[in-house]
């Protein structure tokens, strides 16, 4: 019973961090109709920012601020240089973004080496009703929860209305005086910042290697595939379910099996839900 409670608590905290990354991916898909396959690289970037913060004796959570800034700036740059140029060519954009992620892996290897690195917890764990919870883990989930709530609130404001309008019909949005291109750039940057923050929050839970962004990318894709592409509510519900599933898998099996399970889920759900919702290929 205690084991189940421990897994449940860990799974909920873990899935909130993942929800942050998946929400960003969903936002991009909703506004740009592009599957940002470089999302995992931003998660890895955030994790390395947290690692750098801990080298100065700061907690991993302190890495979230520089991670957000780096994610925002680089995300906007990627949107301007790549996604905007390949507008109307979602396949080309997805492949080029994936290649950017692989190039980023090479960059991480140059900067931090290929050997695994870890981000330590600085505070002693708390014992709540027999369940061990790290205070930094709790704080990370609170931060992620706060950001998701803030994003949901912003989407209901005037600025959020512009985002929703640009996502629903860019041409009508332009006629209404909304600069759809600028909105897309801002959303892309914000979503990449969310991924980088998620990376810094998740960093103490795993080892840091240049290819660490692949698992978050696959899990985020699985989340948006299960939740429905472009559906924020579905993505948040799916991230909770998948986060719990990944925690259970991680508890009983070796790490590669979690990755394999995520990949199999992406294949099964995408293939089974292919018709008719995502088919643009005719009969």
């Amino acid at each position, binding site marked *: 019973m205690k084991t189940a409670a421990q897994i449940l608590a860990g799974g909920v905290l873990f899935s909130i961090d993942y929800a942050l990354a998946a929400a960003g991916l969903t936002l991009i898909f909703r506004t740009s109709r592009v599957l940002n396959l470089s999302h995992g690289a931003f998660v890895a970037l955030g994790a390395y920012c947290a690692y750098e913060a801990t080298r100065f004796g700061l907690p991993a959570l302190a890495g979230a601020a520089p991670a957000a800034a780096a994610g925002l700036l680089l995300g906007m740059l990627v949107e301007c240089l790549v996604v905007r140029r390949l507008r*109307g060519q979602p396949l080309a954009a997805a492949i080029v973004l994936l290649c950017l992620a692989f190039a980023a892996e090479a960059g991480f290897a140059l900067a931090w080496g290929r050997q695994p690195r870890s981000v330590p917890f600085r505070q002693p764990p708390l014992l709540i009703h027999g369940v061990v919870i790290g205070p930094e883990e709790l704080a990370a989930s609170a931060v992620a929860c706060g950001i998701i709530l803030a994003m949901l609130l912003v989407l209901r404001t005037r600025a959020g209305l512009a985002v929703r309008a640009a996502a629903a019909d860019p041409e009508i949005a332009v006629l209404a005086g909304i600069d759809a291109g600028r909105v897309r750039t801002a959303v892309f940057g914000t979503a990449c910042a969310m991924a980088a923050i998620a990376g810094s929050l998740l960093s103490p839970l795993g080892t840091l290697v240049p290819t660490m962004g692949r698992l978050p990318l696959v899990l985020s894709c699985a989340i948006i595939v299960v939740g429905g592409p472009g559906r924020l509510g579905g993505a948040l519900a799916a991230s909770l379910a998948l986060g719990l599933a990944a925690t259970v898998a991680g508890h009983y099996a070796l790490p590669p099996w979690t990755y394999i399970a995520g990949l199999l889920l992406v294949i099964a759900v995408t293939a089974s839900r292919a018709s008719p919702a995502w*088919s643009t290929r005719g009969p």
Partner: protein
Amino acid sequence: MNAERTARSRDARRRREIASDRWRLALCLAPAALVLVVSDRFALSILTLAGFQALYAVSWDLLGGLSGQPSLGHALPFGAGAYLVAVAAESRAPLWSALVLGIVGGTVTGGLQGKAGRRLSPMFLVLVTFATAECAHEFSRLLAAFDSGGGLAGGGEAGLLLPGLAPEESNAARLAAATLGAGMVGLLWFARSRFGLPIRLTRSDPWAAASSGIDAARTRLVSFALAGAIAGLAGGLTAIETGRAVPPMFSVETSLFPVVASVIGGPGTFIGPALTAFVMAAGAQVLDLSGPERLAVYSLLLIVAGLISPAGLLLSGARFGGGIPWRTRSPRESGAPAADAEVVTGE
């Protein structure tokens, strides 16, 4: 007068096509000519592997360029072919039958990828095929953990030990060049034949293909299986030549390699991707690039090619009736029925 002018222009076009065909045939035979000139053993071994890699790139071009189904997991049929040949070789099966097993393995895994993605839009097809190859890569790495060598032996130490061929590098290189030349000529013929017509028609307009009585889903599946068979053959030959089947054969750099070759060489042209892949594979071996280094180089090349000219840098796929469907066709353009038109927008 008009009829005379039409006949003259038809003759001129025909002459241009014949000249173009001769030029293409000469390019197909270029690797074979290179093999006959070179005598150094090291250079020949590099040319042999480059030939097999070019054959693998051509198989992707059939799928992504001609049939318009871009796959980011083509390493799956390539690796499956390599592993099955290695398993057969370890159990002392004759290597020719092992190669047939490799082709069957490539066909089956390619067919499975096609089955999973036959109704997906290209963007989600890329995601699913990437996931299938990554799955196989992880499984092969887990398998390698039980095998101290990190892979399976693929027929002796190394080198093509096929019946009827002396185990010399020159013979291996000749076989590689012949296989590549035959593959290119065969696929160029196939693309223009009545067998290739349904594939081209399904790629350019699935609704028109359906109204002509072509089963679009089945045609896509056949393309995947055929491309898988050629990739399986290339993988099997690579395993025999290198003497091993190893997990990196399923890796993302292996999947990315033919995509880069096709985008640079001209998707759907077969010749451009084959020659680009030949040069890239030989260059990577000469420079002795590691897996992550290859991945970084391929990624940078694809970023540049994708941003500058996704239709092909060297040749244009559109001129050959092929090309990767980078641009999403609107339902109005594709002539989809109204019910599907709503679905396509995803709202």
